[in-house]
């Protein structure tokens, strides 16, 4: 059943190209906005990590807002509730859809980030960054699905979703931003007279933050699974 909903969502997305392209454009625009806000041609270390993390979070919120709109407007909820299936299928399908949207978005956003922010040492850190991206996408997807399911049935859903979602995403954002910051950390080597001779990109161990992120994912998965049924009652 989850597979059917997921396939429906992906088909709709492929035909209309409504959500993911908007998320991608928004993310690239955010990088540009950050450039003008920060007035830096190149971002390093923690600053680069923060810009990436915040931009992706905003894109995730954009995707979250759209997640259940079709179900709400076209009676998909009613049909789903009439069907004799496990309610958690909806959670699984929607979280997977949002996760996949984020992954596709990042295939566009990370190269754009590499071009616009040009953080030194990005290439060497790529493996670690991909791991972090996958885990943070999972957190964004799980929290996003839960928040979206709460918000979609309210009157001011475009407002309620982000204001509930942002604080709930902060632990994931912390772990992601610090982890990526460590991956991108730059250490200058100073020669005589304090002149910077060279940089090394020492990818300091950020395994603990991967663990924090993974635990946050598990926590959210259990929590969402426990309460999701109640959100689908009529």
């Amino acid at each position, binding site marked *: 059943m989850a597979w059917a909903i997921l396939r429906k969502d992906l088909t709709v997305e492929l035909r209309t190209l409504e959500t993911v392209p908007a998320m991608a454009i928004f993310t690239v625009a955010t990088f540009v906005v950050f450039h003008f806000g920060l007035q830096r041609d190149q971002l390093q270390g923690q600053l680069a990590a923060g810009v990436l993390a915040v931009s992706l979070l905003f894109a995730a919120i954009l995707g979250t807002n759209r997640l259940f709109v079709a179900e709400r407007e076209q009676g998909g909820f009613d049909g789903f509730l009439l069907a004799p299936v496990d309610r958690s299928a909806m959670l699984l399908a929607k979280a997977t859809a949002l996760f996949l949207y984020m992954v596709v978005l990042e295939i566009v956003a990370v190269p754009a980030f590499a071009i616009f922010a040009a953080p030194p040492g990005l290439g060497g850190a790529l493996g670690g960054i991909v791991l972090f991206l996958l885990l943070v996408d999972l957190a964004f997807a799980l929290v996003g699905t839960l928040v979206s399911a*709460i918000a979609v049935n309210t009157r001011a859903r475009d407002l309620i979703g982000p204001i509930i979602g942002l*604080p709930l995403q902060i632990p994931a954002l912390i772990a992601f931003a610090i982890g990526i910051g460590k991956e991108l950390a730059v250490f200058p080597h100073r020669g005589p007279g304090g002149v910077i001779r060279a940089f090394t990109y020492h990818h300091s161990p950020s395994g603990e933050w991967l663990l*924090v992120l993974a635990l946050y994912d598990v926590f959210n998965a259990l929590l969402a699974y426990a309460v999701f049924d109640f959100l689908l009652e009529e």
Partner: protein
Amino acid sequence: MSTHAKHLRGLTIATLVTLTAGLALTFFYAPIELNEGFVQKIFYVHVPLAIISLMGYVAGGVFGLMYLRTGKKVWDLRSYCAIHMSLIFSIGGLISGAIWAKAAWGHWWVWSEPTLVSYLIVVLLFCTYQPLRFSIEDPERQSTYAAVFAVVGGAFVPLNFIVVRLSVQYLHPRVLNLEGGQLPASMATAFYVMVAAIALLFVTLMKYEMLAKSTRMETRRLRRRVLGDDAVAPVSRSAAPV
């Protein structure tokens, strides 16, 4: 619905006595702290407010869970009142904390302080509780969604503290740590009495709020019965359980 009124008189008196005793101990018994001087007295109000409001959020989550399990309206009312009261206590905690931070560290806000930061995140999250309720018109759905939110929020409180604490180095004096704190006995006495007093204040005010709300509901029900359905204006949209 007079069940909420039970023990209220005794509870009120106990609260007043404990609060008076706690404040008296704070100002006349506990010694003036050497480094910070008189300003440190705010600690006896600020820390209990913060601790009790966090416990209130978690309690709100537990009540929300009870509502989801039983479907009884009274649990929704409890959850609402606990979170509402916690929000009020939190504002007090944030303001008193900012004053203390300014006096002790010279800044109104200190980002390197995990307790402060995670507390702010929790308050920001629960600030959305009432807007959420307000934007759902159907009372049943409002209660259910609010309960789900309360459960998520209540579980989020301890987790958020762990993550934020991992991310920054310590600065705050650890009052209730596993080693039992480093407070001298006289300060500890005043502190624990104040914690008890603020806890009692929380419970008392919450019970008063529940009593007021249930009395209002009951009055409306009786008026409707006596005067007829048309004579009593329908309740306007409300964030509180009606």
